[in-house]
């Protein structure tokens, strides 16, 4: 608990995490407002309100990576390891705090998007009823939290803000979608790439007839939604373990 409190103080005594959170809310909710307001032919659905979720995800991952790379940049990681020589527990505490904050941002942007769409188009039926709708909205926080853990692990391994952020963005925006261009095996590889699998949790629907097809593109991963989330969580745990192992071996 002490270590969580330490990391909480650290995260919220600089301004950039709050700016990142505001930016994420602005982008995702703004996108939902835009779609609800501009598209006059069609009433917004739960799926269309969640269009901006992936943009917010990028911002949240940048926030999570910066939480650790700035410690390396400014040397506070040394002050931290000096105060708490047990590096694993310190980094796990940081990952926990960052994940909780990311999860909170996720819930705010997801429900905020639904709320703003309802506000703009009060006649739209935006009840969250089906299992799919619950995952698509409430599930955003879970995906954000796990993504934040992955981003923090990458930040710990790379230690430089610019390097970590560009790697994360290039990977999630380009690598996972371009990998399908590899002949023969490309699509099969893509089905198992972690962020694509995480997307399955949000967009996958066991009963497609209930779905509007105008939401964010569904994932082609073959796992069922909840197994997809478990797979993504396992990936986050592996990344964090590698980061902890490296941080313990390395000179601070």
């Amino acid at each position, binding site marked *: 608990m002490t270590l969580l409190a330490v990391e909480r103080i*650290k995260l919220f005594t600089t301004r950039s995490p709050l700016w990142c959170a505001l930016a994420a809310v602005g982008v995702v909710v703004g996108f939902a407002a835009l779609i609800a307001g501009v598209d006059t032919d069609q009433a917004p659905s739960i799926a269309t309100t969640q269009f901006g979720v992936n943009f917010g995800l990028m911002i949240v991952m940048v926030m999570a990576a910066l939480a650790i790379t700035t410690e390396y940049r400014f040397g506070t990681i040394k002050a931290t390891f*000096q105060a708490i020589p047990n590096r694993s527990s310190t980094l796990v505490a940081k990952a926990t705090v960052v994940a909780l904050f990311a999860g909170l941002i996720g819930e705010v942007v997801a429900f905020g998007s639904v709320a703003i769409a309802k506000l703009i188009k009060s006649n739209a039926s935006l009840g969250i009823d089906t299992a799919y709708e619950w995952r698509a909205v409430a599930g955003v926080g879970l995906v954000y939290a796990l993504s934040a853990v992955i981003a923090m692990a990458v930040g710990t391994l790379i230690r430089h803000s610019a390097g970590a952020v560009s790697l994360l963005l290039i990977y999630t925006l380009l690598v996972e979608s371009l990998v399908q261009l590899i002949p023969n095996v490309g699509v099969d590889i893509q089905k198992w790439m972690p962020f694509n699998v995480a997307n399955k949790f949000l967009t996958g629907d066991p009963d497609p007839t209930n779905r509007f097809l105008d939401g964010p593109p569904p994932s082609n991963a073959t796992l069922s939604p909840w197994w997809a989330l478990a797979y993504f969580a396992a990936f986050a745990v592996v990344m964090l373990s590698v980061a902890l192992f490296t941080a313990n071996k390395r*000179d601070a």
Partner: protein
Amino acid sequence: MIEAVGLSKRYGKTLAVDNLSFTVRPGRVTGFLGPNGAGKSTTMRMILGLDAPSGGDVRLDGKKYRELHQPLRTVGALLDAKWVHPNRSARAHLRWLAKSNKLPAKRVDDVLEQVGLTDVANRRAGGFSLGMSQRLGIAAALLGDPEVLLFDEPVNGLDPEGILWIRRFMHRLADEGRTVFVSSHLLSEMALTAQELVVIGRGKLISQCTTEEFVSQATESTVLVRSPQLALLRSAIGQQGATVRDEGESLVVSGMEIADIGELAAAKGIPLHELSPQRGSLEEAFIQLTGDSVEYHAAVTTDALPADLLPAGK
């Protein structure tokens, strides 16, 4: 009490610290002296468990740093005053440190008061001057009221007032019975600050003794003599077994008391125009002792420069 036994650190092919053994005792200020790049900071990082030694170990009151429970209560350290997030306030920085070792929040205000930063406690640390950053670093070191204190080049870049403040501060800490270990590349500074010295060069121990011993050992005293009858004086002194060196229009005598030279000249009827004791400078002595172990020699001869002008750094 800090005990290093056979401490070594290897970075690739270079041996930054080479089989270093020394003891730092409580109740006095111990200087850790060596030219830039001698391995002082590396040694300090190993004491704090930040870097893992390649060989040997270092213990604080018999324990390795990583075995300490709530280490800030045992060891306080200022290795780099810039190890603070520039957008975090001084108080917030100390607050998370205090929390990490379950220290009461009141300690934060206590140490801020102690180093005189109370008025600027809520300002962002990035806007601090070097002197203020240094004070914040010292406040962080004092937070846990530790028995052992480590300071790496604490006076580097400070103005005279700041230097004096830090020097007095360290003496006070040692007088309270704490173990104070301070590194520096300036012997003249250490001569004023430290009672005991651990001198290293190229990662190897050169000597561990009291500052007084080191200074008298290192600075050979000579006598400068000027006379219109220089040749006569030279042979007279030479007969006494002392060594004489010509320096322009004067002689530099070593191995003979100043009074004896005067009496000898009077006995021989040689008029003297000058007879003055020369004390070798601490800087010269230091360069002489560590000369072989300086890692990066300047292209110009360094002994022409006062030590303060030598490149500062970690």
